[in-house]
């Protein structure tokens, strides 16, 4: 098989394994949906004082989409790669003629496809709750998604270097992301966060990605593609890529 065909081959099996893994399906697919439903029901009819005032549901659609995209990319990659590494599955794969980049490309492809699927799913559910799908913004949404997804993939792969064992994977990933979701206005609308919280969150890529995604998705937002936010997200991604190239390991840390 040529390189690209091999990536497709790897991707097919990564997809199978993803959909059969109850933890992946729950945390990456079900959890964002449930979270959106809860928030949409609890805050239904309320107005969020952002960008001149928008409906809470309209606020939470891009918010939970951002979370779902980060979960499908950074979180999924960090967790599954550490598990595969500690299982010795990465090491076994390195003993075959498959080029290492093919393996990574298959996994990244899997993450981006799941992220796209979550975008469609949440857009459809959001529409049921009255958050119109901004069809005219589709190019901006896709550009934002691809830059964000690629950057968070790099960060997820880099993060594996800081995770020593399978048991530590979920704890480390969640300890990083959950506070950032709160501080970035993903769970609590930003007009209700104390001053200074958002400027602190601005130090991290989650906030910039959410901001960019919000701009792309909500017509009341600024310009469709928020290049300044995306540039910061991409810089994080490049830093992640460099760290990943330097520190990613294929052999188990333990034993």
């Amino acid at each position: 098989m040529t390189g690209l065909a091999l990536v497709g081959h790897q991707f097919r099996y990564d997809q199978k394994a993803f959909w059969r893994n109850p933890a992946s399906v729950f945390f990456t697919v079900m959890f964002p949906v449930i979270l959106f439903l809860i928030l949409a029901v609890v805050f239904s009819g309320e107005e969020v004082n952002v960008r001149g005032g928008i409906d809470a549901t309209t606020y939470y659609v891009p918010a939970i989409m951002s979370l779902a995209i980060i979960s499908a990319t950074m979180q999924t990659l960090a967790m599954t790669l550490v598990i595969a590494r500690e299982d010795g599955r990465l090491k076994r794969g390195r003993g075959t003629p498959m080029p290492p980049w093919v393996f990574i490309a298959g996994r990244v492809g899997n993450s981006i496809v799941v992220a796209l699927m979550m975008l469609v799913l949440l857009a459809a559910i959001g529409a049921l709750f009255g958050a119109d799908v901004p069809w005219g913004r589709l190019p901006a949404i896709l550009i934002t998604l691809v830059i964000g997804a690629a950057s968070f993939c790099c960060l997820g792969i880099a993060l594996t270097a800081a995770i020593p064992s399978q048991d530590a994977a979920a704890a480390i990933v969640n300890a990083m992301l959950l506070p950032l979701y709160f501080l970035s206005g993903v769970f609590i609308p930003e007009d209700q966060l104390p001053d200074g919280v958002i400027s602190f969150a601005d130090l991290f890529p989650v906030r910039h990605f959410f901001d960019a995604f919000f701009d792309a998705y909500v017509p009341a937002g600024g310009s469709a593609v928020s290049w300044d936010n995306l540039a910061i997200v991409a810089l994080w991604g490049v830093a992640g890529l460099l760290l990943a190239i330097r520190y990613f390991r294929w052999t188990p840390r333990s034993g």
Partner: protein
Amino acid sequence: MSYGSTEAVRGIDLDVHRGEIFAFLGPNGAGKTTTVEILEGYRKRSGGEVSVLGEDPQRAGREWRERIGIVLQSGRLDPYLTVRESLDLYAGYFRAPLPTADVVGLIGLEEKADERTSRLSGGQQRRLDVGMALVGDPELLFLDEPTTGFDPSARRQAWDVIAGLRDLGKTVFLTTHYMDEAQRLADRVTIIAAGQIVARGTPRDLGERESAETTIRYRSGGEEIVVRTGTPVQTLHELTAAALASGEELEGLEVTRPSLEDVYLELTAEPTDGSAG
């Protein structure tokens, strides 16, 4: 050959022939895995020359990997793929793989072909591991302690699979700490202890090594008599002739030669001065 600051193995000189099962035998911590990982290209050596299928594993590339198969000492499988899918996935990595169905048959997992790997027993998982190393149709397979921790029937099944590799014309480099495994499977055995080679030969040669002394035991007047002799026929004849002449029975008469296990234990025993690490 070393890693960290301790030299794990040194002066190892191995010569494996095409089409044979070569056993690299030694106790835990003797340096088997270090050696095999150098041969597989996973580990860099600090010195010496290594040629595997005509190439230096440290520099060998994709073409070389088409020709080898590796079963790691500890490696789990993707729990969400079936036996067949695991083999198909690996088959896709190679240019000219064996048909998956054939491999399923060779590893004796026909009835489990569509089960997820998480539903297999430890022995079945290990056989699938061998199948994944075999599916690329390599010339040379490395098996690092393929039966450690198995119950006797699982070991026997694994042995049948490994013996079958020879019939396929594969060369097998097997590491093990079980003497009986080497004896059962290998054409030639090299024994390593504390990073150094202590013996080599066919299983039969090794059994005959240091077996010059035969032990004869019997009881006479309630006392156990042990005679060690290099000429057992002569000694036994004299003993029995004397017993016949005096009408005495040699109670509990036993003539033994050291078993392979005895030879192995003696060869790999830690020196008492503790200089080996």
